[in-house]
């Protein structure tokens, strides 16, 4: 079956508490909650605890939601049905 944008929408309904991010800079795989968080900037900045590279940016200003994962090579989340 083809992968559709509906499947992508499903991603954001997932619980990200056990998400693992693989850093695009150094390749380290780390639980999202173990990253270095900088919430006081104009947006949330999430940095790799191994190399301090920015792996994720998330912002909700100006009536839009923004997500930048360009610093993440891979995002791994447990599928709801796999629980």
């Amino acid at each position, binding site marked *: 079956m083809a992968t559709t944008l509906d499947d992508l929408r499903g991603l954001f309904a997932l619980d990200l508490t056990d998400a693992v991010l693989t850093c695009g800079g150094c390749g380290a795989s780390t639980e999202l909650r173990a990253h*270095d968080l*900088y919430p*006081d*900037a*104009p*947006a949330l*900045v999430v*940095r790799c605890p191994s190399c*301090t590279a*920015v792996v994720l*940016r998330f*912002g909700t*200003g*100006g009536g*839009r939601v*923004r997500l*930048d994962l360009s610093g993440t090579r891979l995002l791994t989340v447990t599928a709801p049905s796999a629980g």
Partner: protein
Amino acid sequence: MAVVSRGFHGRGRRDGRLPPGQRDIGDGFPVLTAGPTPHTPLEEWDFVVQGEVDGLHRWTWEEFRALPHEPVTVDIHCVTSWSKFDTHWSGVSIDTVLEGVETAAEYVVAFSDGGYTTNLPLEDLTGGQAWVVDTYEDEPLAPEHGGPARLLVPHLYFWKSAKWVRGLALTSFDEPGFWETFGYHNYGDPWREQRYAGD
């Protein structure tokens, strides 16, 4: 240090100085940071002008401190909606930094310790509009506020005033910086409320 009147004369004067959507934060000075605070030893610090210029222009900390400094009193406006009036700085005008620099560039990327960048038109840095400051309220600029030195471009939102600045890259094309690549406005004029791309 100037004592600013909090009376109604001052209030009236201040009203016209608050860009749309901003609030006066008074004596506060929030620290907004997107990463760990760098602590570069001064003996390793330098400031460079590079890119499309006639060779590398570089100043060590001692050389930078020896450049003519000037006092600057300005209002600053953060995109997170606070403004702060009558902040006192001392620093080196970008006009001084670029004296004798030959370039055909129209754009600048300011770059910092820790990897932060922000882009500006070159013409917004010249003509007495921008400085590299190393002193705030008569004290050496604290690391959490961008020390030892930060860019100061008070007519644009404060994210353009790069903390921990280490140099300017002059380019003939406009290259979006850290926040500009994340949906923030490319120019960032607080008086036109240019917070986000498309504003």
